[in-house]
């Protein structure tokens, strides 16, 4: 725990962690909308498509100001999404191909430009290559300020137009029929998603930023059906991955930030899919197990009823194997469970099973339930 203390006391590390938390929150929250609109992979395309914008912004202004580079990335990421929707609307190609083309071609153009930029004498590498994999440890207070301003602006817009965005995400046709400017809202929401992605490029990198849009949102979705809760949880999971990733990469040498953040986000998602209270796989399995037990118990009870139906003494003992005759193969576990409940007991001499008084009542109730009230 010693390294934790140094971690939180170090000014630079605190700055970096704050930055990563903020961009994680923004990406996680906006990612929920991408998830709902089945646009998760648009994030992947956008983050790749942002690269030429970064290079052009640097070539035009010669400045390394994060705001300038982010604006460049925003413009080219946005053009990328326009091209994707233009291709899908005007040709017979599907969205997957359109995304693939935009992603790889824009990225290629970006690389060609980066190589040119890096050859300029003034560039001094300009730190532009960190945009590929991200490097949170080089984050300065000014970078964090940019993330802060843009991230908060993004979230503010999201909450100002909350109702509208909610409507176009769930029922765009209805939104259009109520007279909302659907295309405009759609574009604005996409722009916000693009913005959430490009502010993270410097820390997490082009190649991995898309994961921060997908994973926290996918995790949050497992916990609730209410949009507000999912968005908040998505933000929280994103922020958590950001802090954990940045902290770990700062405290251990030779550990790149972006990938560590992605690994954390993925772990959260896998845990959510496995363990989330209602939708989780494990709770579902346990529910299925419990209901299978319940059904089995009812079947054993009814089988016992059939055995004693014609018998004046309902508490007569029977060989457990008799149950096989009436169609229950192995009820050993169920009988053990029923013994624990005190519904049946085993005779001391031969280990036959016999209904107890409580068991007899239970049998009658079960039969009544099955046959319904007369």
């Amino acid at each position, binding site marked *: 725990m010693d390294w934790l203390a140094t971690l939180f006391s170090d000014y630079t590390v605190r700055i970096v962690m704050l930055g990563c938390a903020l961009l994680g929150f923004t990406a996680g929250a906006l990612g929920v909308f991408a*998830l709902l609109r*089945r*646009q*998760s*992979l648009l*994030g*992947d395309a956008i983050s*790749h498509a942002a690269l030429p914008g970064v290079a052009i912004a640097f070539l035009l202004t010669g400045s390394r100001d994060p705001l300038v580079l982010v604006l460049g990335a925003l413009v080219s990421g946005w053009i990328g999404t326009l091209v994707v929707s233009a*291709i899908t609307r*005007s*040709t*017979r*190609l*599907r969205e*997957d*191909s*359109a*995304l*693939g*083309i935009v*992603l*790889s*071609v*824009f*990225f*290629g*153009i*970006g*690389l*060609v430009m980066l*190589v*040119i930029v890096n*050859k300029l004498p003034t560039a001094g590498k300009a730190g532009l*290559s960190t945009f*590929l*994999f991200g490097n949170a440890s080089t984050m300065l207070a000014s970078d964090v300020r940019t993330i802060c301003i843009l991230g908060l602006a993004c979230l503010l817009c999201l909450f100002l137009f909350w109702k509208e965005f909610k409507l176009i995400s769930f029922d765009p046709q209805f939104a259009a029929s109520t007279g909302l400017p659907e295309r405009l809202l759609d574009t604005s929401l996409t722009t916000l998603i693009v913005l959430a992605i490009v502010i993270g490029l410097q820390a997490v990198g082009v*190649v*991995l930023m*898309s*994961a921060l*849009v*997908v*994973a926290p*949102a*996918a995790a949050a*979705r*497992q916990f609730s059906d209410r949009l507000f809760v999912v968005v908040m949880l998505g933000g929280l999971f994103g922020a958590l991955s950001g802090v954990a990733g940045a902290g770990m990469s700062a405290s251990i040498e*030779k*550990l*790149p930030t*972006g*990938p*560590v953040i*992605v*690994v954390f986000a*993925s772990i959260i*998602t896998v845990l959510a*899919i496995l363990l989330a209270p209602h*939708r989780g*796989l494990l709770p579902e399995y346990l529910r299925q197990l419990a209901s299978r037990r319940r059904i089995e118990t009812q079947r054993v009870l009814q089988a016992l009823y059939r055995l004693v139906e014609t018998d004046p003494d309902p508490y007569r003992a029977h060989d457990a194997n008799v149950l096989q005759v009436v169609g229950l193969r192995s009820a050993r576990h169920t009988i053990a469970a029923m013994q624990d409940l005190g519904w049946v007991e085993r005779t001391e001499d031969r280990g036959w099973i016999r209904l107890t008084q409580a068991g007899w009542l239970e049998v009658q109730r079960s039969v009544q339930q099955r046959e319904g009230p007369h």
Partner: protein
Amino acid sequence: MNLDLPILLTAVAVALGCSIIGTLLVLRRMSLISDAISHSVLLGIVLAFLATRDLASPWLLIGAAMVGVLTVMLIQLLLTTRRLKEDSAIGLVFPLLFSIGVILITRMAGDVHLDTDAVLLGELGFVWMDQTSVLGLDLPRSFIVSFCMLLANLLFVGLCYKELKISIFDAGLAASLGFSPLLLHYMLVSLVSLTAVASFDAVGSILMVALMIAPPAGARLLSNSLAQMLGWSMLLGSLSAVAGYYLAIMLDSTIGGCIAMCCGLAFLLCWLLAPERGLLAAWLRSARQRVLFAAQMLAVHIANHEGRPEEGVECHVANIAEHMHWQQQFADDVIGYARRQQMLREQDSILRLTEEGRGIAEKLMLHG
């Protein structure tokens, strides 16, 4: 950088291999699988490298292919939980595998010639650093690897052509005829992974996506059958590779990036200019239809007023634009078109229908 035939040939071989396999991906709506695989093979390469400590080892190919298949299996596994949609499942799996790969590289293999830039970006100019001698010729290893991949892809498509065709266009029929869709799927996925590794020295894994998707997508706009599409996509792919290579020499920049750029350009040209499905063709078609429709309306207008007292005003050439609520320019175009089509003639500046024009107008008025 000088002109270097083996480098150019390597680029063309990679482009051909990618565009063959990419055609199948585009048609099966699996384009983004290539993106996922191109990222995640990094993990396979790293793991195989850490095991063998040899960059030339064939295990690198095998490891990468296995991780590629694993990627698709994991995506499938996530889908069967029904907790995620396909896009999220893809977007979750490959960044994770890729991240693990990057972390392993930076932590363990930092001091050797295997870095993320090399895998992601590739550099065709460096292929000579690694040579092998075949039949007494010194050739770059990437050339041989990518050439073999090209042959493997050709063989796959050639041998399974019929099966692929049925499974792409009618999956239900394919299954009922007894072709295992799953077997074909995983064969395709393995080939995509192998092609991804074979191409990564040459163009880098992300740019390989450009070669796998853009030429087939362009070809899709030019063709009406699988064979045509394969042919066009190989042509577009290899042209982009050659053009990209020369562009890179001109700009003194990365060959992979330039090839991706040319792929984009090739697609753009197809998108704009494809004879039937291009934007230009669609625009021309709609412009022609607009004029045709307007000429028919004009014929109806004249038929309504012909031989009546108001004819001199309503059917006067100078008044048509006003009466039909058209721009003057458009009215002139429509009248010119209608006259060329022998629908009407002009008599003392009054428009009159020909027999043909009257036939058209009457048919329209009769049937609405």
